[in-house]
């Protein structure tokens, strides 16, 4: 999953990005409104964490403009706690609204919720044949036994599982699994796919030659 964080307070941005990366997300950052909007429009993020008070365009503006073209789930982050601000945020198109200061665990859970909702999934647990994926605990089970899996591999599995039935192109995978800070080596993806097949069965991920991968 690839997340964009738009937040102008540098210390906050840095540690939030770090925390999310350690959770297994690919994270892009922006510290002002204009860059934030540019990034959000240019890339298909799985979720955006958006601060309201930003230099340049403020969070409301970014959300309004973004919603013209994209349905990316947005979690608004702000110090403004008035009911009308919450209502405004949700009505403008935010999927959730979190007040600072916040608990990291809560952000993680809400993030998972909005991603899950946008993939039209209602539970945390996805079952595909012998494989069970607990998106809350970020665990994968094969035949009810926990599987040792790296963060990047988990991200791959989760993404394909949430888009079950769809063919996901390599480009999409690159976009959603790696952030702008990483150089994408094209065979890195193959390595991850191959590792997953070794752990969860060769048929788990199907290859569509010339198109991409999918989980059926």
């Amino acid at each position, binding site marked *: 999953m690839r997340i964009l964080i738009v937040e102008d307070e540098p*210390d*906050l941005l840095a*540690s939030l990005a770090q925390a999310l990366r350690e959770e297994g997300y690919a994270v892009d950052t922006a510290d002002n409104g204009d860059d934030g909007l540019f990034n959000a429009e240019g890339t298909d993020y799985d979720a955006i964490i958006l601060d309201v008070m930003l230099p340049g365009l403020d969070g409301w503006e970014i959300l309004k403009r973004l919603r013209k073209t994209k349905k990316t789930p947005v979690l608004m982050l702000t110090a403004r706690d008035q009911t009308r601000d919450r209502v405004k945020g949700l009505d403008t198109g935010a999927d959730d609204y979190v007040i600072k200061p916040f608990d990291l665990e809560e952000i993680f859970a809400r993030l998972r919720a909005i991603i899950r909702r946008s993939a039209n999934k209602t539970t945390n647990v996805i079952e595909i044949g012998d494989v069970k994926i607990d998106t809350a605990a970020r665990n994968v089970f094969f035949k009810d036994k926990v599987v040792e899996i790296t963060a990047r591999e988990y991200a791959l599995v989760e993404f394909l599982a949430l888009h079950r039935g769809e063919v996901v192109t390599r480009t999409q995978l690159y976009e959603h699994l790696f952030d702008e800070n990483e150089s994408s080596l094209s065979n890195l993806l193959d390595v991850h796919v191959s590792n997953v097949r070794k752990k969860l069965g060769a048929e788990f991920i199907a290859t569509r030659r010339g198109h991409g991968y999918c989980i059926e």
Partner: protein
Amino acid sequence: MKVFNSIKWRLQIWYGLILVVVLAGLGITAIKFEQERQMTWLMTNLEQRFAAVAGVLHPHPPERPSPGQTPDDLPPPQNLRPDQFHLPQQFSNLFDSNDPHNFYFIVFRNGEIFAQSTNAQVYIHSGEKPQHYPRMFDIARPLPSGEFVTVGCSTEPEFQELKSMAWKLGITCIAILIFGLIVGGWLVSRALRPVENISAAAVKISAGDLSQRINVAEAESELGQLAAVLNSTFARLESAFAQQKQFASDAAHELRTPVSVILTQTQTVLNRERDAASYKQTVEACQRAAQRMRKLIESLLALARFDAGQEVLKRQRFDFSRTIADCAELVKPLAAERSVKILFELEPMEIIGDSERLAQAVTNLLTNAVQYNVPDGEVRVKLQASGGLAVLTVADTGQGIAAADLSRVFERFYRGDQSRTGAGNAGLGLAICKVIVEAHGGTIEVSSQENAGTIFTVRLPT
């Protein structure tokens, strides 16, 4: 007594009393006039009868028999005998006892009754006094021929007339009084209704609903002004309260961001084992946040103290130019960082005040001037005496402030760019300057041109 506290009742009572007095006066006057009229009528009648009687005794010379009078009815007056005295025909009905007035006459000659009318007996008292004197009126005069004539009448009919008139008047007056009181009461109620509206609105306001206003359209012109003044006062009250609430809420708000930094930084770093360098980074970030909070708290407390009037300002004589120079030293590093030049034109000037607080204000102004400036920009600081005041101007070559925002720069928590959380600027610097300057009896103004610069002018009494 509660009744006497009510304006309505007091007005009613006064009005009632006045009405009573006026009506009584009118009534008494009416009766008096009637009495006079009666008197005049009586007098005329009595004079007429007197003349008649006197005419018998003392006819006007020259004596000439008038037609209808037999010549031998007129003996010379001095020789008239009592039994010869009788009134001529045409006067016979003047002393008719059927007339309720009971006109009578009595003629005395030499102290003794010489002649009288038939109904005069009642009026002659001899011996014991009668039970009650009948109401009567008479005229009694001597005649040139020596007789003493009394002509009188009973005033009983007049009295009864007056009595009946008095009753009728009395009842009418009471009816008018009652009617007047009712109408007056209604008028007073109507007149006082705007006052009731005003006091009703005031009660609601003091109970806490500051959005109430008096409906001015209802209030008549004299009260309309009062209502307008009250409305504007209520508006000011409401806005003052709103500002207070806003201040408290904004203050809490400002603390959210540094706290959230600390929380996220510490939670992240504690998520797993880290190396010393990571912990150090986190701790430094927490320190930065804590410093921000400390500055914020200091600013808030200062403003709160000034607001509550608890701030005790020192009153010392000191050289303001020295203070400004000291502040400039503090700001030098920041200016160097942003390659901004600070130029001074300071006249040595002594003022009385709190040098520490004023230094705080000056530092705020200088810091702003440097921060909101362009690279290689300038800050011109000028101190001069003008019209008995110390005038300090701080001019920068920065991006300027939009005209729409100019009136708001001194507002608490107002930041030019609403997001400058990173710079640790909570938007209180200018609010504090204003409070300090005004506590010294001075004024602070700002003028600006977008993309050219901003000038702050502080005037302090010397």
